[in-house]
């Protein structure tokens, strides 16, 4: 039973990280129908920014709490700035282009950003400062669920609730939903669609940056390549849940995380990714729009 709970928490932790990244994919897809392949790189840049800021601050002797807060804010700010700029440079000019053009642009952007960080920083793995301390009160259960797992779970939950409120109740949230559902009509009621799309990129990037900060301090290292696999997995999770759907992205991520964790625990980690992708194929065969996706009626 202990083992089951251990794997459960491992899966939830992993799923939470996927969720933070998957939301960016799903929100962008919901609004402009683009698979933003560079999103994994935004997550990586978030992790790198928080690494740089946190290390600099710790060298200058700031207290831990200040470091955590400043690093998180900096990561969110710069990731958002990158998300915003990438959209403006690589996707906005292609708003009316053939459907695959922005996809290739996104792949190019992804390659570019990876190599940009590689060249400006280093190809080596870097030790990420420990931003999450080992809490004393967690000690009795630390072998099952550690402090960093807990922080990840709690933070993700808070972020999810905040995002839901934002989408549900604020003006920009409503504008985002309206734009996703009917772009022309959104324009006709006075929504500046360009601004809404930028906002979507900014919010999605900030979430990914939080994910980057959390996971980097959880596993204790980063390099320029961490965005690739995490991005692909998060994207898979978003599709699994029904791409375009926000609760779908969260559910899909948790399902994916748990599948990987239990598959590793009870079967073998050799085929961890095979299980993940097979699950995706199976679910899509029986539910072609993902777990919470709506069956689309195609406009004729």
């Amino acid at each position: 039973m202990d083992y089951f709970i251990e794997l459960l928490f491992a899966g939830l932790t992993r799923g939470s990280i996927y969720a933070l990244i998957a939301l960016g994919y799903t929100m962008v897809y919901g609004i402009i129908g683009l698979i933003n392949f560079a999103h994994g790189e935004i997550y990586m840049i978030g992790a790198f920014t928080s690494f740089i800021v946190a290390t600099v601050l710790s060298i200058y002797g700031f207290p831990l709490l200040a470091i955590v807060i400043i690093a998180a804010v900096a990561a969110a700010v710069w990731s958002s700035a990158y998300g915003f700029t990438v959209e403006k440079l690589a996707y906005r000019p292609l708003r009316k282009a053939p459907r695959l053009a922005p996809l290739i642009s996104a792949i190019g952007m992804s390659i570019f950003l990876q190599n940009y960080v590689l060249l400006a920083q280093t190809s080596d793995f870097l030790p990420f400062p420990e931003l999450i301390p080992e809490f004393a009160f967690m000690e009795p259960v630390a072998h099952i669920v550690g402090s960093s797992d807990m922080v990840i779970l709690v933070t993700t939950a808070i972020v999810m609730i905040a995002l839901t409120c934002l989408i549900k109740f604020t003006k920009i949230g409503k504008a985002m939903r309206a734009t996703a559902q009917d772009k022309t009509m959104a324009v006709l009621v006075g929504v500046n669609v360009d601004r809404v799309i930028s906002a979507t990129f900014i919010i999605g990037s900030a979430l990914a940056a939080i994910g980057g900060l959390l996971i980097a301090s959880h596993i204790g290292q980063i390099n320029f390549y961490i965005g690739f696999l995490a991005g692909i997995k998060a994207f898979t999770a978003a599709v699994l849940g029904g791409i375009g759907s926000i609760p779908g992205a969260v559910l899909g991520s948790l399902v994916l995380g748990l599948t990987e964790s239990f598959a590793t625990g009870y079967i073998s980690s050799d085929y961890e990714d095979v299980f993940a992708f097979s699950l995706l194929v199976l679910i899509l065969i029986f539910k072609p729009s993902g777990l919470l996706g709506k069956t689309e009626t195609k406009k004729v």
Partner: protein
Amino acid sequence: MFPVKELKRSALTSLWFAFLTFPIMVVKVDPIERVVSWRWDNMFFIAFGSFVFSILAKVFIIQKERRASKKKQKTISEPLVQRIVREPRFLYPLALACFIFGISFPFLFSTYQTNIMTTALMYVVLGLGLNIVVGVAGLLDLGYVAFYAVGAYSYALLNYNFDMGFWTVLPIGGLLAALLGIILGFPVLRLRGDYLAIVTLGFGEIIRLVLENWNDFSQGPSGIANIPRPSFFGMDMTFAGGITYIYYIILVLVVLTIFVVNRLQNSRLGRAWLALREDEIACEAMGIDKTKTKLIAFSLGAFWAGFVGVIFAAKTTFVNPASFTFLESAIILSIVVLGGMGSIIGVVIGALILILLPEYLRALSEYRMLAFGAILVVMMVFKPGGIISNVRRNYKFKGLSVVEGKNNE
């Protein structure tokens, strides 16, 4: 004269980039020695560079608009390449010249150049194969590399276990890949565009992971070495001879592929694909069997990938799963989109650019992939329809203008 407003905007752009790149470009920390180096000179370069660049981009755009507005008053003139493609008068001599150049290539250049060109030609065929799936039939396949892997491993394994020769395996590899395409296609082809994309991506990864983990079958990550090059009537060949030989094999395959794909596009089936790409529901109403038509496109694309896979194994004489990653699929897809979806010549040009570019960008050494990514983005932004944008689109508006009226397809 350049407007002052634009200068101000460029200044703002440069400020923005200075801010944007600040943590990554300027700060470098050594977490072990606990030292921070501030590379302010980088910030200066970025600010200056982006200032100059944004002005250049603006000038470029203004000129483009000016040219476009001038053009609008006359007829819309076609790009040069497209006109050449259209006119048999230009096309045939050009094709002949290309062919002669292709044949004499190994005589003109070194073995190394021939080797690189062989790789490029392999991607031409891969691009043309994927073009059937993505460009013509409109099915977004992000796992195309799986079929390539199937071809490569067919040759490696059949040769290793049963000592089968290159020429025997060549068709088998293609058929196995096509078969796999059918098996995969059945359940997934009813998925909508982007769902299909991620499922094929997942499938490509599954194939690679199986090859990586199933040691008894594929020898795992260490791969299979000592795959023989194609034999030439039992004659043993020198290394340079082998390279040249494979070059000619792939050259013949390129010609064959172009011929077949061209015929296919103008056939009933080709038109059904195009129609399917434009509007699935209307197609069904007109009695086109959607699943069957898609399946044929999917397996035909796979067949070509399998073919090239066999040649890949013979050329490198070594296969391991690391050669079949998602990036490979992405590059083949980029070839198709960059060249211009659905256009044969576009795909050929796209493949030559994308494969030869990194090879000749070696001079840029570590900036190679950075430049590659940037070029992909820039090409897409300035030419979203690809180098040769789809010629066929014209016949929708047949007779609307003088130039388009000439289109006698």
